[in-house]
């Protein structure tokens, strides 16, 4: 039997004005288990708290009920008070007689009656409470960052600078991501490579950072503070330790017909290649699909010319197992496929290109060495049309419902750069809205219009047709209520962006939830924007939603600070109000596993002793470090094997009984 003390707070006159606190204290004395009751002006004050502590000691209380304000206000306070007095903090229940009683009822008699019932319910629940001890788990002081773009690099650098080890896993042969492909960045027009490559070098040189390029996450197990991850290091065909990065193999490689991924397929590369000059690591990769040696068995030129003996055709994928305390998803984005947009002739006309392709064309290290030339005939275009919102803000199947956020700004940038380099070129931009929220963004767009004379036309393009080597662009000018036809030499489409396709499988692997567009969802859209709902998983960059470089870097830093916060702890103290499985009752049916939003439930074969019968059965096991205590599993469990500590079936039913008595 419990020995319960009931403490009724006046909250000055907040409670005492409409609730007879003395009567509540008196009435609760007749409840089962209650051995002491009192009332006090401000229970949360030091005086009130010491009264509680004294009563616990004096009466040997096993639990206390505080009739006061909402538990959302002072539950934590009174739990601490109890702990100081040597009572388990989970032997405290709060009866909310202020927000849910004294403040909403004017009649003192009725208010008092209700307060007595609320106190009774709290006592009834407390009678079923058991002391709970929060579990502790270790924190492995290393973080994994998945994705080596600007988001991943920034997060890794910030975490590493705080003194923790970080691994970056990048699926392509080099870090750098999409930002490495950009020419200039808005709104300052500084060169992307100039600001990115030093960061890439920092990351590779940092003693706390290990790079796993050309690698992918294979599987993961564990929970916050204690993840075990298998990383597949794909075979490069080149021994990174021996390679000097001299580049002779690339020069001599006879197979030079593969499309350059880095240059968006606008030019070719050799079968053994480094994506771009500043790639990190500066070690080539053999693309086995286009390598003559791998396809026919003959060739072997690269092996012959390599003086460092670094070429290794027999190299195989390697699985590396590492442990991490925190994981950051920084998987980034890609532009959507424009195959379904026949009206823009993207697939048919080489001179209709995407904005990312245009970036490469502008870039001094790009396929045209920075000269803006038409892909079809390598002539400089005289008229260029930019089309915004291609696939963004579209509810039809081939598009994306959201605004891609970055297109307005980079289109203004492209238009401006083009006019600056080639003042004779006419530049038109078709827009639906120009969205420029951001520091110096609108000023930038206005400069494109006012200083550079870019023609902004409000309306969409309906059709692009090729006629005698020129592109006939038919669009709306909604302001003039006219249909305009522009004969252009090049059309640049601002394709919508979408999460990288690898995010989906990673989301499943990490039980990191995703929205319908495959962006990772944050734990709270406003208050926890860089955390995934799954503890220990953080979000950095575009994988969480469209954003530009400054936003990405800001978010990457925020994610890093969350990771640092986690890694700085030696131990994690869990929430003890988590689900627990009563093994003899468990049917092993898996329904609880299916509803768990955190992947906290697994199934194991356990020896179960039930009424003397020993049997090895499949039973459900809750990982207390992962479980957040929602209780979804408890209701889906038909046998009642799953219960939630702190909110057990019996506790809640005791409350129901007490209220309905």
């Amino acid at each position, binding site marked *: 039997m419990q020995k319960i003390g009931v403490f009724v707070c006046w909250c000055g006159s907040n409670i005492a004005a409409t609730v007879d606190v003395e009567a509540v204290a008196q009435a609760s004395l007749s409840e089962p288990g209650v051995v002491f009751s009192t009332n006090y002006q401000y229970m949360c004050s030091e005086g009130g708290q010491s009264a509680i502590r004294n009563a616990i000691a004096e009466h040997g209380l096993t639990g206390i009920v505080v009739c006061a304000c909402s538990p959302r206000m002072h539950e934590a306070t009174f739990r601490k008070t109890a702990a100081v007095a040597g009572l388990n903090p989970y032997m405290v229940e709060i009866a909310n007689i202020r927000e849910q009683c004294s403040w909403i009822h004017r009649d003192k008699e009725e208010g008092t009656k209700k307060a007595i019932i609320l106190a009774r319910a709290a006592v009834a629940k407390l009678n079923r409470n058991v002391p709970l001890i929060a579990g502790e788990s270790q924190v492995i002081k290393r973080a994994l960052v998945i994705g080596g773009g600007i988001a991943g690099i920034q997060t890794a650098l910030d975490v590493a600078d705080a003194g923790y080890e970080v691994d970056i896993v990048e699926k392509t042969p080099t870090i750098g991501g999409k930002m490495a492909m950009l020419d200039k960045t808005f709104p300052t027009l500084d060169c992307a490579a100039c600001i990115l490559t030093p960061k890439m070098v920092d990351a590779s040189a940092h003693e706390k950072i290990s790079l796993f390029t050309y690698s992918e996450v294979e599987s993961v197990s564990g929970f916050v503070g204690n993840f075990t991850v298998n990383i597949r290091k794909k075979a490069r065909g080149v021994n990174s330790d021996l390679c000097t990065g001299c580049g002779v193999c690339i020069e001599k490689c006879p197979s030079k017909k593969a499309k350059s991924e880095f240059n968006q397929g606008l030019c070719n590369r050799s079968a053994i290649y480094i994506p771009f000059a500043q790639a990190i690591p500066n070690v080539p990769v053999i693309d086995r699909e286009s390598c003559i040696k791998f396809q026919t068995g003959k060739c072997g030129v690269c092996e012959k010319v390599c003086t460092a003996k670094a070429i290794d055709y027999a190299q195989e994928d390697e699985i590396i197992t590492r442990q991490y305390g925190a994981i950051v998803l920084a998987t980034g984005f890609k532009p959507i496929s424009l195959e379904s947009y026949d*009206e823009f002739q993207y697939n048919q006309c080489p001179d209709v290109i995407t904005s990312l392709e245009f970036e490469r064309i502008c870039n001094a290290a790009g396929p045209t060495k920075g000269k803006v030339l038409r892909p079809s005939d390598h002539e400089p275009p005289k008229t260029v049309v930019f089309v915004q*919102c291609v696939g963004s*803000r*579209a*509810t*039809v199947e081939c*598009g994306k419902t959201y605004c891609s956020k970055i297109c307005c700004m980079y289109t203004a940038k492209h238009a401006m750069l083009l006019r600056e380099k080639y003042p004779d070129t006419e530049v038109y931009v078709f827009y*639906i809205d120009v969205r420029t929220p951001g520091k110096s963004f609108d000023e930038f767009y206005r400069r494109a219009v006012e200083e550079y004379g870019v023609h902004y036309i*409000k*309306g*969409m*393009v*309906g*059709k692009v047709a090729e006629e005698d080597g020129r592109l006939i662009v*038919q*669009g*709306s*000018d*909604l302001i003039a*209520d006219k*249909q305009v036809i522009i004969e252009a030499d090049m059309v640049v489409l601002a394709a919508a962006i979408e999460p990288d396709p690898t995010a989906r499988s990673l989301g499943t692997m990490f039980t990191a939830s995703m929205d319908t567009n495959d962006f990772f969802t944050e734990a709270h859209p406003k208050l926890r924007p860089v955390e995934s709902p799954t503890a220990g998983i953080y979000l950095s960059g575009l994988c969480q939603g469209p954003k530009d470089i400054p936003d990405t870097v800001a978010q990457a830093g925020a994610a890093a600070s969350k990771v640092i916060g986690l890694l700085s702890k030696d131990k994690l103290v869990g929430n003890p109000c988590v689900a627990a499985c009563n093994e003899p009752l468990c049917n092993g049916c898996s329904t609880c596993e299916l509803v768990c939003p955190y992947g906290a439930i697994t199934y194991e074969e356990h020896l179960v002793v039930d009424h003397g019968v020993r049997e090895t059965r499949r039973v459900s096991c809750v990982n207390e470090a992962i479980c957040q205590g929602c209780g979804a599993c408890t209701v889906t469990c038909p046998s009642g094997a799953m219960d939630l500590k702190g909110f057990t079936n019996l506790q809640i039913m005791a409350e129901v009984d007490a209220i309905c008595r």
Partner: protein
Amino acid sequence: MHADERKEAETIIRASGVNVRKCMKCGKCSATCPNFDEMDIHPHRFVSMVEEGDIFALMQSKSLWRCLSCFACVERCPRGVEPANLIEAVRLEVIRPLAGNRLRPEAIPALLDEKIPQQLIVSAFRKYSK
């Protein structure tokens, strides 16, 4: 606005099944329209005029009969608004009270021209028959 006009707008929205509020005013319908120059009221304005309940002007417009019913605007609309369906609904509102088709199958042979695409006859039926 006239009460009758508001009622007319509601009928048109109901009959066409078009949700005019989905329009984000990008003008792709007008950009894609092959008969734009022949029209006095252009497809994108059709949508906003129905939304505003400005129906009588639409019923008197030339565009009603100049629309080819080619459905290019429906095909290209990024938000699935279907302007041509609206135009059709307005047209039916004009044709129906006249109590009779404006095109009968018997009249077709006389109109035939071997250069006319078949699609035109089909859309003519859509346009001129109730």
